[in-house]
Structure formats: structure tokens, C-alpha cells
């Protein structure tokens, strides 16, 4: 039996510990150093600039005063007290020496300490963090299982708070935007399963949310390892500036549209502007009263804004409308204020352009000469009166032509370039007085309804065996003692069964044709479910009918499924002429 050379074995083990590249020490609960290897002595003397290595806690007190408490508060008899605890010595600005300290308690009076200099690793880490702390984008990495990695850029922390390691991506987003989070969660598995190409799956991911009032845009980049998904890099950008620029561009375009509209008919535009101003005041008054009336005004305001070329403002009206689940719901105070502010800004820019329109008539030189000529030739009084009236009172046809232009614009915006709009009215037919102004305000609703709901797309028409080109006719004629204004389309007609269902759902009578007609005009009933920029919610026709009835006129709708709709308003001539 070979004798073991105990002394040689001991020397070898001693050398093993002595030459370890890690600093090792044994201390007691008070920090007294009992055993220390060479690397330990070297590291401590170098880091702390001392030649007294008696007590570890005293030595590290200036940079890690917490160690004593960590040991004192460690209740168990044995176990890991800390692992890789970061201890930082600041050598110079930006130059740090960083030690990682691990303490394991072996029993009473015995704590093994391992120290390593992680300055280089830490510097690399800090360089990355420096980047993350100063980049304006939000950066975040998500693991394949949907959990977050702890590192992220400071911008993200400011917007969405600090992510916790191991947290699910969607749980991190949920407090800011629950809908965004839910959609992330449901799409995640589709994305990681790889059934679709990653880019295609990511295309479905939600991309925008608002955090603390800041619009944020999300983009996603899959990180692949050997062709397989390992992580998802999420890049978040503040879209405020971009959106603001878009908004300014849209505002500029709106103003151009508005100016081109108002130069065509300043007087008419001015009326619209004043009317809209009154509506905004009514809507945004603190005690605005009946929510239904407010909803109607808002709806009409939206239509008129669109007609005036103010599509951004119309968009704003629509957003507010959408936020009210039912027309009976009152507007939020915040919406009132923002609507008022936005309108006031617009009004302030447009009103000076419209200015005061002096009541009177203007004749150009040619017309003036022609009129003089007819007087010299002894023309009848009736003819002269007729010619002067023609200058003083705008023709109905001219007015209908402007609505026709608006209808064409709407059709293009709704992707229905197949719409032909005709105006059918005698040149000599004029508005008797200005009583009709109110009517025109609400007539926009009917026009939008017709273009949006009535007129079909080319494909739908062809599929139904109809001519590809749809036709919308604006018609005005005088018949004995009545002025009739008609709007006729050859579109899909009113969906009476949808109206019936909606009416029943609201507990209204829905048996006779008269019941259905009543339901059609009732606020809040529309044959459509969604609101588009041009129409929806079923508020418009009711408002139109009320305006018509207030003028002592009557409104009728004739509609045949798949054939089209005819809306007719009949005004008694006497009420219009102010007699």
C-alpha cells in the first residue's frame, strides 16, 4: 500500500487556492478576515489602497456600507447571502473599477467570500447602457416565450415604466393600453409558431398607442439564430413631431380647400361659417342641454364642415361622435373644450377672409351695358325687373351645382368614381328669400346619405346586373304653389328590413310602411352599424325632417330595394316668399 505524502498533497492544495485567479477570503459575521488568498490580498490592496487587511467590512465601508447589514440580516444558519453584488470604485470620471462580491455562509463564524474584478465586463455593459440611456427610441428585447429581457432604453422607461425581468411583454403594456396588450397576447403564438413568415405575422401586430399623452409607434424586428426565432426586438418611437407635421400639412390643405370654396361664393360660405359658429357655441356651452340635440348639432356640424372643405374639423367631430355610444350620451367636458378650441382657431382664420358681405348687387361692365341698351330700346318693366332680380337673388340651379360638386368629391373619397351627378333645374328658378338657408344646412345630410349608403360601388352594381355608372340627380322645380327639391339616386335603396330590426330592437312600432318611415327619421337608427366620415348613426335624416317641418314643408322618401331612392321636399311657395 502506497503511503500518501500528506505534506506534498497539502502543499499542492495550498498552491491551488493560492494561485486561483479569483479572490477568496474567509470571514466571520463581523467581517474579520481569517483566510485570504493571494489574489484577494492583491485585489483589495490595489482597490482600496491599504496595507491593513483585517476587516473586510471596514475595508469596503466607503463603497459598500450595506455589507454588514446584509450579513446581519441573513437569518439562515447557512446559504448564499449574496451573489455577484456589485461594488463600484470611482477612479475618475467615467473610469470605474467594479468588483462582484459573493458571500456564502457555511456556519456560525464562517463566511466564504469570492471577489472578482468585473471592470471590463461592466464597462462593456455600461457602454451598452450609455447607448440605451441616450438613444431617443425605446428599445426592448422580448424572448421567444414572450418574456422581457431586463435591459431597455431609458426612453421606454419614461413612456411605459420600468419593465421587470421575466415579465410578459403584454403584461408590461397592459396598464398603458389594455387593447394593445390583448392583441399582442393573442398574436404572439401565431408569430412564434412560425406558421407564417415572421415578417408577415409581425405585420398584424398593433403599432400605435398613447402613453401619457404621447403617440408612440411600434415596429418589430425578429432576431434569428440559425434561421429560427430567438428574440424579438421592439423599437418604439415618439410620433408627436411626425403627426404634428402631418396635421399641419392637413391643416394647410384644409385651408386651401376652404379658401377655394369661399372664393366661389363668399356670401354662401359666410352663412355656413356663421351657422357653424352658432352650432359650436350650442354644442360646447357648459349647459348644452338636451344631449340628443347636441348630438344632432354635432352631426350637422360635421357634415357642414366637410362641405366647407374643413375635413380635419369634420374628423374631430366624428371622433367625438364615436366616443358617445348612444346619441343620448352627453359629451365629455374635455371634448367640448377641444372642439371649441379647434373651431375658434379655424374661425379666427376664416372669418377675416369672408368678411362682411354688403347687401347689394354687382353688375359687371358687360351686363351693365346690356341693361342700358335694353332700357334705351324701350324694354318692358317686367324684363328689367326680371334681369335685376336675377342679379340680386342667386339661382337655385347654381346652388344645386355646388352640392353636386360636393357629392362628386364625396364619391371620390368613398372610392365610388362611377357616380355621375346631374342637376336638373330651370335657370330662372330662384330662392324666394333666405328662408331656405336652414334647409340647405341639413340637406347636406341627405346628400351624404345618398352617396355613402345609396350609391353602390361599380363592382356591386355590376354583380347586381346594373349599369356600372351610378346616377344621382339633384332636382328643383316649381309646380303651382309649391317648390320641390328632390334628390334621386338609382342605388341599392333603403334596407327596410334592417330598419325594421333596429326599430324593433328599440321597442318602436315597425309594422306598417308609415311605421318604417317614422323609424327611418328617428334619431339613432341607421341601416348601418359603423360610422364613416361622411355619415352614420342615423342622426341626419331626423334633423333634416325637423328643419323641413319647421319651414311648413313636407318630406317624403320613396325607396325601392335595388332600384333607388327618391327624397322629395315640398315647400309651399307662400311660406318661402315671406308672405
Amino acid at each position: 500500500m502506497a503511503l500518501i505524502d500528506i505534506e506534498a498533497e497539502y502543499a499542492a492544495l495550498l498552491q491551488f487556492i493560492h494561485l486561483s485567479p479569483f479572490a477568496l477570503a474567509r470571514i466571520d459575521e463581523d467581517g474579520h478576515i481569517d483566510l485570504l488568498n493571494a489574489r484577494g490580498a492583491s485585489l483589495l490592496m490595489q482597490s482600496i489602497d491599504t496595507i491593513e487587511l483585517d476587516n473586510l467590512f471596514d475595508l469596503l465601508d466607503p463603497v459598500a456600507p450595506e455589507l454588514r447589514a446584509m450579513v446581519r440580516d441573513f437569518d439562515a444558519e447557512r446559504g448564499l447571502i449574496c451573489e455577484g453584488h456589485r461594488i463600484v470604485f470611482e477612479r475618475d470620471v467615467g473610469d470605474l473599477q467594479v468588483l462582484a462580491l459573493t458571500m456564502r455562509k457555511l456556519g456560525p463564524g464562517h463566511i466564504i467570500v469570492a471577489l472578482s474584478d468585473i471592470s471590463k465586463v461592466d464597462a462593456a455593459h455600461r457602454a451598452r447602457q450609455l447607448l440605451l440611456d441616450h438613444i431617443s427610441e425605446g428599445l426592448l428585447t422580448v424572448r421567444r416565450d414572450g418574456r422581457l429581457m431586463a435591459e431597455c432604453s431609458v426612453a421606454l422607461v419614461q413612456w411605459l415604466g420600468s419593465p421587470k425581468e421575466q415579465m410578459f411583454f403584454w403584461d408590461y403594456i397592459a396598464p398603458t393600453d389594455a387593447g394593445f396588450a390583448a392583441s399582442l397576447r393573442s398574436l404572439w403564438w401565431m408569430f412564434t409558431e412560425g406558421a407564417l413568415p415572421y415578417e408577415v405575422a409581425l405585420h398584424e401586430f398593433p403599432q400605435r398607442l398613447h402613453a401619457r399623452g404621447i403617440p408612440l409607434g411600434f415596429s418589430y424586428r425578429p432576431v434569428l439564430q440559425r434561421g429560427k426565432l430567438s428574440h424579438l426586438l421592439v423599437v418604439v418611437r415618439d410620433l408627436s413631431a411626425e403627426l404634428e407635421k402631418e396635421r399641419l400639412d392637413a391643416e394647410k390643405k384644409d385651408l386651401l380647400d376652404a379658401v377655394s370654396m369661399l372664393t366661389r361664393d363668399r356670401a354662401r360660405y359666410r352663412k355656413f361659417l356663421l351657422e357653424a359658429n352658432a352650432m359650436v357655441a350650442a354644442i360646447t356651452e357648459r349647459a348644452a342641454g338636451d344631449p340628443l340635440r347636441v348630438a344632432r348639432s354635432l352631426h350637422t356640424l360635421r357634415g357642414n364642415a366637410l362641405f366647407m372643405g374643413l375635413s380635419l374639423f369634420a374628423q374631430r367631430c366624428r371622433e367625438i361622435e364615436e366616443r358617445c355610444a348612444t346619441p343620448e350620451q352627453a359629451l365629455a367636458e374635455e371634448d367640448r373644450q377641444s372642439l371649441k378650441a379647434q373651431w375658434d382657431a379655424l374661425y379666427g382664420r376664416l372669418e377675416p377672409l369672408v368678411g362682411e358681405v354688403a347687401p347689394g348687387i354687382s353688375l359687371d361692365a358687360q351686363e351693365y351695358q346690356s341693361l342700358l341698351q335694353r332700357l334705351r330700346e324701350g324694354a318692358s318693366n317686367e324684363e328689367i325687373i326680371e334681369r335685376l332680380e336675377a342679379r340680386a337673388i342667386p339661382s337655385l340651379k347654381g346652388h344645386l351645382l355646388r352640392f353636386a360638386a360636393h357629392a362628386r368629391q364625396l364619391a371620390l373619397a368613398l372610392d365610388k368614381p362611377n357616380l355621375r351627378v346631374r342637376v336638373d333645374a330651370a335657370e330662372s328658378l330662384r330662392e324666394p328669400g333666405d328662408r331656405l338657408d336652414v334647409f340647405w344646412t341639413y340637406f347636406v345630410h341627405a346628400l351624404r346619405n345618398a352617396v355613402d349608403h345609396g350609391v353602390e360601388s361599380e363592382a356591386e352594381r355590376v354583380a347586381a346586373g346594373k349599369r356600372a355608372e351610378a346616377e344621382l340627380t339633384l332636382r328643383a322645380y316649381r309646380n303651382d304653389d309649391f317648390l320641390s327639391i328632390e334628390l334621386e339616386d338609382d342605388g341599392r335603396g333603403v334596407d327596410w328590413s334592417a330598419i325594421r330590426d333596429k326599430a324593433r330592437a328599440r321597442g318602436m312600432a315597425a309594422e306598417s310602411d308609415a311605421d318604417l318611415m317614422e323609424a327611418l327619421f328617428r334619431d339613432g337608427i341607421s341601416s348601418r352599424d359603423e360610422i364613416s366620415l361622411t355619415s352614420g348613426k342615423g342622426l341626419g335624416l331626423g334633423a333634416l325632417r325637423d328643419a323641413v317641418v319647421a319651414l311648413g314643408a313636407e318630406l317624403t322618401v320613396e325607396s325601392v330595394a335595388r332600384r333607388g331612392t327618391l327624397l322629395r321636399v315640398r315647400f309651399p311657395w307662400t311660406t318661402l316668399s315671406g308672405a
Partner: protein
Amino acid sequence: MVELQWGGHVSGMNSDLLESIDRLSIEQIDALPLGVVGFDRSGRIEVYNTWEATMAGIPRTSALGKNLFAEIAPCTDNERFAGRFREALAQETMDIEFDYVFTYKMRPTPVHIRLYRRAPGAMNWLFVSRR
């Protein structure tokens, strides 16, 4: 004959001893009551006395030929110790004294250190005494 009667502190070594150190036999060096290590400019150990071998728990035979800073006393491998030595290499002679902590058999041991070289190209000496 060199007078070896002296109190055992690196500072107390008389000039005769220092002058003759390069010529002393290993027996004479072993008789000194302090640690003595002789090494070349790269740190390769050529002399390692019994006092030092006993304190460090490293047999003389294991130490000879090894590198002082990397293999025998890695606690010296920093600016405070090895740095001073490297700096002094550029000088013709060397005589530096400072306090330090050695980890003899893993016990932190406060020591006085004297680094000495009599002439250019001569042996570099490390003298150690306990504080």
C-alpha cells in the same frame, strides 16, 4: 567574514550585509532571520531561503525557477508591488522599502518589504520581515 548579528528587520540590515549579499552562500542566507528571495529582471527565482519557504509553505525546490509575481507570490502582482519593481528596473540600483500584506498559507500577514539591487545587472533581492 560578514557580521550577521542584527535585529531581523529589513530596515535594520547594515550596509555591509547589503554590499555582500550577492556573494553570500545559501547557508549564510538561510541563517538570516527574515525572508530572502533572489530573482532576475523577469521575476525568475534563483534564491529562496528557508525562512520564506517555511512561512509560505512552499518547499525551496518548488520555488526555484518559478516566476515570483505570477507563480509564487501572486499577491504581489499589482501596481503597488510589481509596479514599483518594474519602475525601478530602469534605474541602475534599487533600494525600496514599503509595508505590505502577504498571505502566507492563506493567512493575511502584515510585512515590511525591501527591494534591493546593488548594481546594474546584479541579482534583484526581496527581503521580508513581519510587521
